[in-house]
């Protein structure tokens, strides 16, 4: 499972949903794999506002890497910028126009953590189990 998905899953049990302990689910004995996925900055900037950052920091820590404590800020990439972007042979989107170096770094980091890191083996559990 991708960290992206993990950040959006919550326990489906109704009584559980409202409890702060039910989110995020925690990884144990996780085995990681990395999978190459086309880089898509537009999707990432669209997803960023929806991410639960503290939960992502927690999940990442459990898997052995560190993220900044606060959610990075990104300008909302627009569809026009994307239209100007080119796609490379491996499907990556090149956003030469409009994205600063710092933002590009942030986007690449998000891409790696959310889209390319997969937990292939291991357990997920709630805090209150």
């Amino acid at each position, binding site marked *: 499972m991708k960290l992206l998905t993990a950040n959006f899953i919550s326990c489906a049990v109704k009584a559980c949903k409202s409890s702060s302990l039910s*989110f995020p689910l925690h990884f144990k004995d996780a085995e990681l794999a990395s999978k190459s996925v*086309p880089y898509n900055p537009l*999707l990432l900037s669209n997803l960023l506002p929806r991410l639960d950052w503290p939960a992502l920091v927690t999940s990442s820590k459990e898997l052995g890497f560190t993220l900044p404590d606060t959610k990075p800020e990104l300008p909302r990439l627009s569809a026009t910028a994307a239209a100007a972007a080119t796609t490379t042979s491996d499907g990556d989107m090149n956003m030469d126009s409009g994205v600063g170096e710092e933002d590009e770094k942030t986007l690449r980091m998000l891409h790696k953590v959310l889209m390319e890191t997969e937990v292939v083996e291991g357990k997920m559990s709630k805090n209150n189990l």
Partner: protein
Amino acid sequence: MSRPEDNLPPDLFYNDTESRKYTTSSRIQNIQASMTNRALELLGLETPSLILDIGCGSGLSGEILSDGDPAHTWIGMDISPSMLAVALDREVDGDLLLGDMGQGLPFRAGTFDAAISISAIQWLCNEDEKGVDPKTRLSRFFDSLYACLKRDGKAVCQFYPRDEKQRDMICSAAIKAGFGAGLLEDDPETKNKKLYLVLTVGGEGNKDITGVVKNMDGVDVYDNRKKLLAKAKGEAKHGTKAWIMKKKEMDRRKGKVVKSDSKYTGRKRNIKF
């Protein structure tokens, strides 16, 4: 023709053999692909989006989502471990979850830009093994779907109801969950007819499904207002105020310019010189 839905629970019907057979049939591949493309067209997403594929099976529908332009990212959920195993084998792009949609979708509120379900939700018209009835399962499903979509989100579910009763049961569960709902039928009256339930989540303006499906042939707007209208139709006598109001409403929905309603609507007017 006998329907698998009438005989076995989905996770037993889609066992290892059936899942392979299903996925490798080029006939099925083509049908699922064209229905998914139709669903995408109805969603009208212009930017790369995060999409939930409900009853994703072996990924025949999902792969259309990641292969298109713009390429979307998807998360799939299915109740059949065999189907998901085939999806894993085929190395589909989407992340896969094992779960029963009839127990509710396990996602945070506002997660997805959109959702699709291709040939799956009619399975909700059966009891589950614990004897939970279809009505409860349908409402758990649609309530949780409504919650996990973004405020301007949309969903398209292609499904095969057994009969009108099942179709209506599904539609009214969706409306009860708060969706604006429209039904679209492609190739009606043929054996290839396909039914799409188009759902929109709140947000002013988006609630009105007529905007989503306007200018499309064979669209049946299916919501509470329509029922009220149908009722009015049965009762309103030609020439009465109710009849005029109904006619005006219908014209309005066709996009015609209609005089606004007032207390004078439908009154007899005296001839003036």
